């Protein structure tokens, strides 16, 4: 075989590979008219993987619980480690390669990344996020108890307990900032004062000096607003500084895998799921439902409800699904009777919980 023949064979092989690859990819991305693809972007690795796994399990549970439907529903999961930089590429992959009809995201940071992309690509997006900006636009929705609702319950609980001086440790992060901005406004109407407000960067592990600054503030309770692992390290270092002042949080305790660090402390969380969901989730995973799992279950069913409401010969367009979502009222979800408000937010109630025997439990007032 001379050199020229080798070159010709080589070129033919390369062309054959390219053509085969093209048709394989065309085939895999061909959209079935009967199938609704839901892309889920959540942390499947990293410090918050346990939350992403909870969301995945809840959505698979919802898919499994699905009765007879007009369309079939496929779930595609992408890992973003709750890192906004990774979120963008994960969403682009879901849109470009998987051709999804709807996207579900977790966290305010990632939600803010997905929202404009979803709007630009005319794809329905439901975020499990505190920041109301995530719901901006025609195609974006939030299923999370809004900060205003959580703060209302939090302030009422502070007043009920007679707490007048609040100390705050807050992570410089979008979700925490949204909750804190609303809380500060609400506290202006009360006699409760924030006596110390310590802000720190995400990734910080040495809180000793900000704890020293807060120590003599006279705070009657400290509010921790952080993700894992900052929330655990912060809780640990507060104890190590010899501070016995009670700790509380809005959601943060359930963002940790080491909830036993906060044994006996009360906190406010987004709505609690029904006992039936908790039982089913525990049977599937041997774990308590993690933060956002019940929202994920509801989101799957909300997308199904909005899609199934459309009676047509082809599957509904994202526009039609989005329009249908805005009309949802008193939907029977695992987080209660759900309605979508004019801002695209699925309204649900906040709950007061505590860590008891190493597990989060609701407290009746």
């Amino acid at each position, binding site marked *: 075989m001379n050199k020229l023949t080798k070159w010709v064979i080589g070129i033919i092989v390369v062309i054959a590979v390219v053509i085969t690859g093209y048709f394989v990819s065309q085939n895999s991305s061909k959209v079935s008219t009967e199938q609704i693809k839901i892309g889920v972007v959540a942390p499947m690795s990293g410090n918050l993987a346990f939350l992403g796994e909870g969301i995945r399990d809840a959505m698979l549970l919802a898919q499994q619980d699905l009765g007879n439907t007009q369309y079939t529903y496929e779930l595609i999961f992408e890992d973003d480690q709750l890192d906004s930089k990774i979120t963008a590429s994960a969403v682009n992959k879901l849109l470009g390669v998987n051709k999804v009809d709807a996207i579900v995201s977790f966290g305010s940071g990632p939600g803010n990344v997905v929202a404009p992309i979803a709007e630009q690509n005319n794809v329905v997006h439901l975020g499990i996020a505190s920041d109301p900006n995530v719901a901006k636009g025609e195609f974006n929705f939030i299923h999370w108890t809004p900060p205003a609702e959580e703060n209302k319950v939090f302030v009422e609980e502070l007043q009920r307990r007679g707490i007048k001086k609040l100390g705050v440790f807050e992570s410089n992060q979008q979700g925490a900032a949204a909750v804190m901005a609303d809380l500060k406004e609400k506290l202006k109407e009360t006699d409760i004062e924030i006596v110390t407000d310590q802000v720190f960067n995400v990734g910080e592990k040495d809180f000793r000096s900000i704890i020293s600054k807060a120590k003599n503030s006279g705070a009657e309770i400290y509010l921790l607003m952080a993700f894992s692992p900052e929330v655990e390290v912060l809780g640990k270092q507060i104890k*190590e500084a010899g501070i016995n002042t009670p700790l509380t949080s809005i959601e943060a305790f359930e963002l940790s895998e080491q909830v036993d*660090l906060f044994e006996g402390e009360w906190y406010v969380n987004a709505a609690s799921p029904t006992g039936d969901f908790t039982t089913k989730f525990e049977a599937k995973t041997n774990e308590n439902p993690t933060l956002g799992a019940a929202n994920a279950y509801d989101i799957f069913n909300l997308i199904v409800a909005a899609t199934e409401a459309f009676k047509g010969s082809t599957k509904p367009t994202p526009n039609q699904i989005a329009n249908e979502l805005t009309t949802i009222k008193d939907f029977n979800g695992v987080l209660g009777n759900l309605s979508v408000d004019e801002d695209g937010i699925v309204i649900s109630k906040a709950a007061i919980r505590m860590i008891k025997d190493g597990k989060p439990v609701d407290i009746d007032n």
Partner: protein
Amino acid sequence: MEIVPQLILNSIIAGSIYALIALGFNFVYGATKFFNLAHGVMAAIGGYAVFYFAKTLGLNLYFAVILGVALAGIVGYGLDKFIYLPLRKRKASNMVLLVASLGAMTALQAVIAILFTSRFKTISQNIGTQKLFEVLGGVITQTQLIIILVTALILAGLVFLLYKTLFGKAVRAISDDEEVAQIVGINTNKIIGYVFFIGSALAGLAGILVGFDTGIEPTMGLGLLLKGVIASVIGGVGNIYGGVLGAFLLGFVENFGIWKISGEWKDAIAFTLLIVFLIFRPRGIMNK
């Protein structure tokens, strides 16, 4: 003013951790004259080794610490033997060695994440129940006290090794001029290999202590390395005493810097200090 004693203690604790990293980093830099970015990941190797040996295999904690330190040293020695030495033999520039160390750091971090996941882990057996000591009006934990004592002991040990032993003389000779050291009969490659072992073992020890104090994650080395490098630059790169002085200066500036302003400025303060030194005293405090 009543928080000043606690801020001083916090600065000493932070300074001690930075010093442990800076000591090993400067020790290696002094002999090789390149920025070994893989030095930080040795801290993660030490921390994860103790996590594995003590928590997973259930070995005695002290034995696990020795194994962790040794493993970090061996990995550092291996990097020199299999990556840096062949490059040095080919007269590779310091930039090539730096890029190679960046590659080694990234690869080792990825391996740790694959083996142990990226989740933050604690190796402390007594979370939140550590013995607390009152020192000069401030509070310090048992682990933090050990960190300070270990740093002092390591500094003393390293000074003894460098200035009172034949090995130390050889290291100093290589640090002054590697070619001349070779001419006078010093096996420089062998000595540099040992330097990598000791420097990496020190980083491993720092990672273990940080693991006991806060916790471990695969990327922990990068943050520690950055602070160690800042400390080294401030104190004088390659200078053992300079690294320690720079580490404590950094610890004090960081912790006192956020006394009156928000804690989110901490890193900005550290890097501003670095820039100030790079502009006005690039050789650091100790180097002439």
